[in-house]
């Protein structure tokens, strides 16, 4: 499912809104998620999961091709942990 398919699904579910409104709503939600994470703030969506940041310390990296050594600075990377409801709904018996 792509973003535009998600928008189409939501528009069908909420037919009182124009597709443009739904598009705007999806963009607003995704922007807010990204913006909050970039401020170092957690996101907790009950029934879905939580987003947080994990720290990656600085490290020395060697380019295997050139043998060159590069210092990779410390950084944060996004992390998602599925919530209980999502975990249970996805993990039906194989």
């Amino acid at each position, binding site marked *: 499912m792509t973003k535009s398919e998600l928008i189409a699904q939501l528009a069908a579910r909420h037919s009182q*809104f124009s597709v443009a409104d739904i598009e705007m709503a999806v963009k607003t939600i995704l922007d807010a998620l990204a913006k909050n994470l970039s401020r170092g703030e957690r996101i907790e969506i009950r029934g879905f999961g939580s987003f947080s940041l994990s720290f990656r310390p600085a490290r020395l990296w060697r380019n295997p091709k050139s043998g060159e050594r590069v210092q990779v600075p410390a950084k944060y990377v996004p992390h998602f942990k599925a919530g209980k409801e999502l975990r249970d709904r996805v993990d039906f018996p194989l």
Partner: protein
Amino acid sequence: MTTLTKADLAELLFEKVGLNKREAKDVVESFFDEIRLALEKGDIVKLSGFGNFQCREKPQRPGRNPKTGEEMPISARRVVTFHASQKLKSQVEGAQIGTPNAE
């Protein structure tokens, strides 16, 4: 440090998109529900500029009860993984946790 919740997202839809509070709450709920439904079906959810959610099948593997040290297998299961897009990665890379960014 604050945590963003569904109520905050609904508030934003009220302010920025002009949905009323009831509708805003419903749309936020449906947004995550549609993603969940797609994942349940085994679909990959690709949200360009944000990241991909994917359902992966993990085989059974050996595990151990951390309390008793007793060995027991961890059963095969389906789990959801999230891969942030390059854009989201570069947005959060320099986050200063605990020191709010001046905007």
